[in-house]
């Protein structure tokens, strides 16, 4: 029975493809990829797509330098690539809101012809639900197809741990006491980059904030499906939900996600400043790459980063081994520790989620007068994200990122950075704010706060003002798409900027 259905589905897929290739005969698609490490995998699976559809595909690596300008000019050129692989979600969302990208929401509801799952399902069910939630823009819309996920944890020097008789910590308290023990031994506990745009501290803050905000998820997601309720342990419980801008405006006005009034924000900031005491003193000017070099030289005992650094560190150590084998040291990775009742008095639901964020996504630029070409790009995106194809794709790369597809296994060696459990996720608030300008304001405040130039209350007040202004900007920009009746009922006085 199963095989008959399988055949039937294959038949449908072939039919769809034949229809498409009929109109797209001898078409060449281009894939622009800012992640050279993914490229070998993509190239390995493309011949199969070309064979099935009769189209040809050119996959091209684009240098990362000045990529914002490259994307902008490509978008404005009238002939952008068919698929762009990039890890800048705010940028993608901005192009989406400007109408330059295909909307993914509608596409996700239909099945993907390349998905070989036993039971028919919409395309979106191929992906981890929580990643789709992360990819949504602040209004709840989706402009990108999730592709890889960045797991975050602490890289540590195992030699130092053995010498000081330390063990990888399971809780926040143990983490801080390990840091203190390292510092007491005269070494630097952790090099952390807080130069504007270096996200390491923000990843941590977002992990903590997400955990602490879970109890208020129902208070934010006010317009939900009938009978919906939030189930932390079941990632699928958020499947059809999204936090939209109107809900966020209401939640902010009610103080649920207002940094100045929300205890979760206060607690997150407090904990992060507790850790910042242990940072290497030049943390305000360090950047991510420098941190790895510092760790590789043995000048700091920890650093926090994502899956990608598994490869970076192995390569560095392999290279060091050739000239200075005595400088090579064993290293390991432990996940971000749990918060306990000792760390915070606030109520918690479930445990900390290891994933920091979505990393690489696929964006599908629009070709407004060429519908078949747009369809062909969708078909290629569906092909590249079909679990069977993606498994093959990842096998041909050195990429340690976690695949965004639930059924594709991650590479061996990445276990400690993979989330031990998957939690239901709704993006109720973001620590750094809701648009790029707000984010820039956040960085100023954050550097002041971690650099001990302002106190907790001032920081939260400033952050609150910045969040409020960003939400007001978004509300003004997207006024037509807001649910005015809902807003009137919830906020009779309107949203005060």
């Amino acid at each position, binding site marked *: 029975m199963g095989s008959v259905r399988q055949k039937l589905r294959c038949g449908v897929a072939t039919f769809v493809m034949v229809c498409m290739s009929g109109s797209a005969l001898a078409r060449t698609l281009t894939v622009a990829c800012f992640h050279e490490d993914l490229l070998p995998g993509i190239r390995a699976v493309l011949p199969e797509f070309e064979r099935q559809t009769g189209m040809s595909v050119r996959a091209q690596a684009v240098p990362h330098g000045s990529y914002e300008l490259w994307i902008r000019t490509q978008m404005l050129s009238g002939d952008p690539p068919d698929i762009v692989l990039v890890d800048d979600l705010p940028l993608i969302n901005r192009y989406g809101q400007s109408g330059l990208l295909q909307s993914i929401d509608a596409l996700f509801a239909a099945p993907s012809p390349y998905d070989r799952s036993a039971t028919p399902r919409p395309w979106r069910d191929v992906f981890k639900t929580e990643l789709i939630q992360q990819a949504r823009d602040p209004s709840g819309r989706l402009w990108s197809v999730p592709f890889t996920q960045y797991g975050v944890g602490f890289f540590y020097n195992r030699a130092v741990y053995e010498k000081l008789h330390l063990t990888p910590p399971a809780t926040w308290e143990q983490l801080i006491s390990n840091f203190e023990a390292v510092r007491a031994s005269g070494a630097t506990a952790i090099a952390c980059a807080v130069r504007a745009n270096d996200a390491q501290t923000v990843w941590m803050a977002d992990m903590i904030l997400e955990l602490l905000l879970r109890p208020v998820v129902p208070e934010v997601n006010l317009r939900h499906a009938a009978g919906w309720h939030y189930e932390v342990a079941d990632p699928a419980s958020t499947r059809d939900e999204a936090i939209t801008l109107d809900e966020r405006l209401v939640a902010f006005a009610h103080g649920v996600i207002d940094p100045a009034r929300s205890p979760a924000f206060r607690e997150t900031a407090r904990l992060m400043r507790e850790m910042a005491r242990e940072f290497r*003193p030049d943390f305000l000017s360090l950047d991510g790459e420098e941190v790895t070099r510092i760790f590789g030289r043995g000048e700091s005992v920890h650093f926090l980063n994502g899956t990608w650094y598994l490869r970076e560190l192995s390569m560095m150590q392999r290279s060091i081994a050739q000239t200075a084998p005595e400088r090579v040291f064993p290293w390991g990775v432990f996940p971000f520790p749990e918060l306990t009742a000792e760390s915070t008095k606030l109520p918690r639901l479930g445990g900390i989620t290891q994933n920091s964020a979505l990393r690489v996504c696929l964006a599908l630029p629009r070709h407004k007068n060429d519908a078949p070409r747009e369809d062909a790009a969708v078909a290629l995106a569906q092909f590249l994200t079909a679990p069977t194809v993606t498994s093959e794709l990842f096998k041909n790369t050195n990429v340690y990122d976690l695949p965004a597809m639930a059924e594709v296994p991650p590479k061996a060696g990445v276990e400690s950075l993979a989330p031990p459990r998957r939690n239901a996720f709704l993006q109720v608030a973001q620590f750094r704010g809701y648009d790029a300008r707000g984010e*820039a304001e956040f960085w100023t405040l954050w550097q002041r706060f971690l650099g001990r*130039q302002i106190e907790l209350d001032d920081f939260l007040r400033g952050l609150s003002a910045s969040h409020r202004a960003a939400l007001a900007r978004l509300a003004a920009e997207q006024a037509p798409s807001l649910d005015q009746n809902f807003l009137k009922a919830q906020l009779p006085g309107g949203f005060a900027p």
Partner: protein
Amino acid sequence: MPAWVLFVAFVVIPLVSALGLAFFRTDGLVQREWIGLGNFISLKADPLFWRSLANLGLFAVFTVPLQTIGPLIGAKLLYSLRSARVAYWYRTALVFPVLVPSVVTILVWQELYSSSGLINTLLASVGLEHYTRAWLGDPTTVVPAIVAMGLPFTGGISLLVYLAGFMSLSPSLEEAARLDGAGSWAVFTRIELPVLAPQIRVIALLSLLGVVQNFDNIQILTNGGPMNASLTPALYLFRSGFEFGQLGYASALGVVLLGMCVLLTLVLRKFGRKDA
């Protein structure tokens, strides 16, 4: 004239279309809404803008004199050399490093400034631990630290401009002065400097323009931080336009910056004329 065709096509037209955006609220893609002077009004109320102007002032105060005088000294030394062959080699050594891509220079200075870098190590080794710091991570030292990357301020191109000036000096004038018993210093200040005045003005103006334009170094090194202590208007403009998606606002900033430059040039010119 060919120059003007090129100039209009590739400078004036883009310029007009870029600056025209200053009166719109736009991300420069498709959305566009006329808001008149709205951008300028928000600019006036934007503390970051004023902060960036103050930073620019600080950068200019450090950079312009150094970049004007440094190459002059270099050129004078070269000019005073008696052997033309040796001068040729020194000149080459002083000028060709402009070839080094800025990526490399930045990497070198990052290594110098790092908190475990060469500068701090040297300071510590001579017992000055007290003065070690995160040079680029400290709001009080970040601007001088970025300026110091121009060491030793002989700035290849400016040096050539000065040298060209020295070359056009009349040797007989100098000889006559020396016969009258003028020392080297007197020759330099009374004869050479006045003749070189136009070059000095040109270089000062160019280095001022350079300071106003420069943002990519700062972007890579500190991205305007820490706490906006090294944010310049040009960097703020870039970030507003391409990071924050507010190209209209960025263009307004560009217009204001341009206006100020023009004003400053006019003022400088006026003073320049008075001298002459």
